[in-house]
């Protein structure tokens, strides 16, 4: 999942010492777009925000589950919870939401058998809107598409995060260099 941690607002605060609920209120007032991460002993909770509103709540253990806000709020005040807040562009929040909520056009395409450039060409021709998501053990990337053209791109490899044209180039190059998994999500929500 493309959770970008390159713009931290708050990092590694322990619930033992900080009034987390005050901080959450502040993020709401500030109109946070990004996510709050709550690390627990065996799992992580993610509250995805757009303009100060919680748009999705996830639990990662390590599978990703959609959960409800109340269970996370309970986790926030648990002793030993570690709390971080990261800002992200709205388009990146949108990309995460697309990969959770939207209909898949193609699932588990592998670059062992497909040519990613041909796939891009086809999606352009079809005036596709949605997300192309690529994933490998060491790296992950996404291209947000609107009417067949890219409007945003991001690439992550370990601690390195790239955006825009450089990210796009890395997605293509790394997908050709390594056997990468490719999923394509449309802009339509799952029924």
């Amino acid at each position: 999942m493309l959770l970008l941690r390159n713009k931290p607002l708050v990092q590694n605060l322990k619930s033992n010492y900080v009034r987390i609920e005050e901080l959450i209120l502040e993020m709401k007032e500030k109109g946070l777009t990004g996510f709050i991460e709550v690390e627990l002993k065996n799992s992580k909770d993610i509250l995805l925000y757009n303009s100060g509103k919680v748009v999705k709540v996830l639990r990662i253990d390590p599978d990703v589950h959609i959960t409800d806000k109340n269970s996370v709020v309970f986790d926030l005040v648990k002793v030993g919870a570690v709390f971080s807040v990261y800002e992200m562009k709205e388009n990146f929040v949108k990309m995460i939401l697309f990969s959770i909520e939207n209909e898949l056009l193609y699932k588990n395409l592998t670059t062992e058998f497909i040519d990613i450039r041909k796939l891009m060409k086809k999606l352009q021709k079809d005036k596709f809107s949605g997300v192309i998501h690529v994933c490998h053990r060491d790296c992950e990337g996404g291209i947000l598409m609107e009417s067949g053209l890219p409007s945003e791109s991001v690439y992550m490899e370990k601690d390195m995060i790239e955006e825009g044209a450089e990210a796009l180039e890395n997605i293509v190059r790394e997908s050709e260099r390594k056997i990468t998994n490719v999923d394509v999500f449309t802009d339509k929500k799952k029924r």
Partner: protein
Amino acid sequence: MVKMKNMKMKYRRGNLRDIIDSLLKDRFTGSLKLERGEILFSEGKLIFVVYDNKLGKKNLKSIDETFDYKVEELENEELQLRIRWYKLISGIEGGKNREEIIEDLGIRNVDKKYMTKILEKEDLLYLLKESGDNASSKE
């Protein structure tokens, strides 16, 4: 002329020369999208043309005088992303090509005389090819 950012717009019909002139005059940054291609501008300069999946300004000649178009303002990052996209899918590798590097260096006309002078200066005259008068990428 209506220019809107990130909004779905319907195609309009117009004269290519008039639209381009108007965008250049307005120091426009963004896209002039055609049914079969796209022309990109940065601060009033025409920087990129793709038409029928072919890249390059020379393709402007093949566009009819009147055509359907839509205009969209873009940030520089979006512009660069779009250019990289077209280059990647057309198989042109990222980074600058030879012509762009030569242009960046301020060497507009690389002829044999000029090249000989430079190589002589650097003690590298042995690198000069014996035949051909032009050292441009069209060689």
